């Protein structure tokens, strides 16, 4: 059997103070009511609070929104103070319209806002809350613009603002990495615009969030993926597009982290974010900023078309030069052929001339040679005749001399009674030879042999 211990008064019962007491202790309800009264007493009027929205401010099914306000930058801190905010449906609708009218971003996580409201204490949750009745659109706008300017200033100072623009756009940017929400209107606009051309665009799409909390992460991941592809030499250009949206939808494109990632990207990044008037940080930092996804596609098409036109021009210039060269060559060839024909004809005629002359010369030369020989022969005949003459003359002289000699011939002398006496050697004697020599004396008729006395 259980024995119940009697309830005794705890020794450490706190001493009640000046507030109304019953049995010396508050009931919870009493205390919380008191708390509520104190709070509403001190915070009788509405106050303006500046803070950062933490948590999802989207309305619940009831139409009411619940989120926290914290000081800027303390969203992840565990000990920094937070203020639970409540936005009742009726207020919410009005505020949303106001924000939209002022072209300010709708309430969204991470947004810095200036809100007006009343501090309240909700006993069941023991929660101090803040009931929002108004939002100052200009504060948020101002903050955003300020932030934009700060980022741009920092990037400019670091030389990063136009860093991506420094990468030259390829002459023929046919390989495109498309970063967008796949299947969205922006996606379809972009793709169909490219498909309308005859050019061989090759598009790979990275499906990303283009608004909300995940957007920054997925967009940066898309660029990381682009780096991976770049090792394989693909693509030529990165295109980031999305359709029109509210200011809060487009907040991610003012992200500093994303902007820096784009600035440092090795490939040119072109963007087509469907703003109406505004320019986000991405527009400043991208290689080229276009106003819509369609315009972005058209920009790329223009680059290719320009190259195409230049090729055409080159082709025409080439064709006309080739034609010119051909006709020049043809003319030269024709001139050469004519010259050849003339030269050959002249040369052959010259040769024929030589031959004809030689042909004419031959008989003349032969005749002349023969004539010359004949002349020589005639001269020889004359000389022979002359020789004959000489011989005849000699002969005549000889006859004459012979006659003379005959007249003085010894036998005639002998006939006249002379004699020739010869010695033993047969020599005619002119002096008496020594006695005893034998002599022969020849007479006209006969001879006498004698001896000298």
């Amino acid at each position, binding site marked *: 059997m259980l024995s119940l211990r009697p309830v005794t008064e705890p020794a450490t019962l706190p001493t009640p103070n000046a507030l109304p007491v019953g049995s010396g202790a508050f009931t919870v309800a009493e205390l919380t009511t008191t708390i509520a009264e104190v709070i509403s007493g001190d915070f009788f009027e509405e106050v303006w609070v500046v803070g950062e929205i933490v948590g999802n401010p989207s309305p619940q099914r009831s139409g009411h929104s619940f989120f926290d306000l914290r000081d800027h930058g303390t969203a992840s801190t565990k000990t920094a103070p937070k203020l639970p905010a409540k936005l009742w449906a009726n207020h919410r609708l009005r505020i949303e319209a106001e924000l939209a009218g002022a072209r300010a971003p709708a309430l969204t996580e991470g947004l810095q806002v200036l809100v007006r409201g009343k501090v309240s204490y909700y006993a069941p949750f023991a929660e101090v809350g803040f009931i929002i009745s108004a939002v100052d659109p200009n504060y948020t706008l101002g903050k955003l613009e300020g932030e934009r300017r700060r980022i741009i200033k920092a990037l400019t100072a670091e030389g990063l603002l136009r860093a991506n623009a420094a990468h030259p756009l390829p002459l023929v940017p046919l390989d495109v990495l498309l970063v967008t929400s796949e299947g969205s209107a922006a996606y379809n606009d972009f793709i169909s615009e490219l498909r309308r051309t005859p050019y061989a665009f090759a598009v790979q799409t990275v499906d990303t969030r283009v608004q909300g909390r995940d957007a920054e992460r997925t967009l940066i991941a898309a660029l990381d993926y682009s780096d991976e592809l770049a090792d394989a030499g693909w693509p030529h250009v990165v295109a980031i597009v999305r359709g029109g949206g509210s200011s809060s939808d487009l907040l991610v494109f003012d992200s500093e982290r994303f902007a820096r990632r784009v600035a440092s990207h090795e490939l040119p990044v072109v963007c087509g974010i469907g703003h109406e008037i505004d320019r986000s940080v991405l527009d400043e930092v991208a290689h080229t900023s276009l106003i819509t996804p369609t315009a972005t596609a058209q920009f790329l098409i223009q680059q290719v078309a320009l190259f195409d036109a230049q090729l055409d021009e080159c082709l025409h210039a080439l064709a006309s030069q080739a034609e010119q060269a051909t006709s020049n060559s043809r003319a030269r060839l024709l001139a050469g052929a004519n010259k050849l*024909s003339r030269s050959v004809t002249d040369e*052959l005629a010259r040769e024929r001339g030589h*031959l004809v002359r030689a042909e004419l010369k*031959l008989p003349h030369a032969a005749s002349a040679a023969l004539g010359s020989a004949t002349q020589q022969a005639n001269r020889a005949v004359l000389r022979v005749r002359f020789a004959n003459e000489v011989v005849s003359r000699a002969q005549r002289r000889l006859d004459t001399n012979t006659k003379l000699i005959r007249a003085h011939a010894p036998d005639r002398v002998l006939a006249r009674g002379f004699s020739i006496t010869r010695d033993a050697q047969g020599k005619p004697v002119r002096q008496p030879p020594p006695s005893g020599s034998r002599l022969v004396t020849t007479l006209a008729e006969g001879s006498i042999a004698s001896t000298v006395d």
Partner: protein
Amino acid sequence: MSELPLEGDQPSYADAMKRIEAILAQIESDDVNVDKLLEHVTEAAGLIKLCKSKLTETETQVRNVLETLEED
């Protein structure tokens, strides 16, 4: 008589012409050799005939070749 370099059986046109000129020069000079005269004249006449036929042949072939150019 000098030896003519032969192309096949016949001397070249140029060589034949040279020989013809040489023979003529010899005949025209006063160095008359009656024995050789007949030989020289026969040779020269033969070479002239040869050159004439070569020339005519060349003229014909050249004309044919040039005509093919005009066909294009």
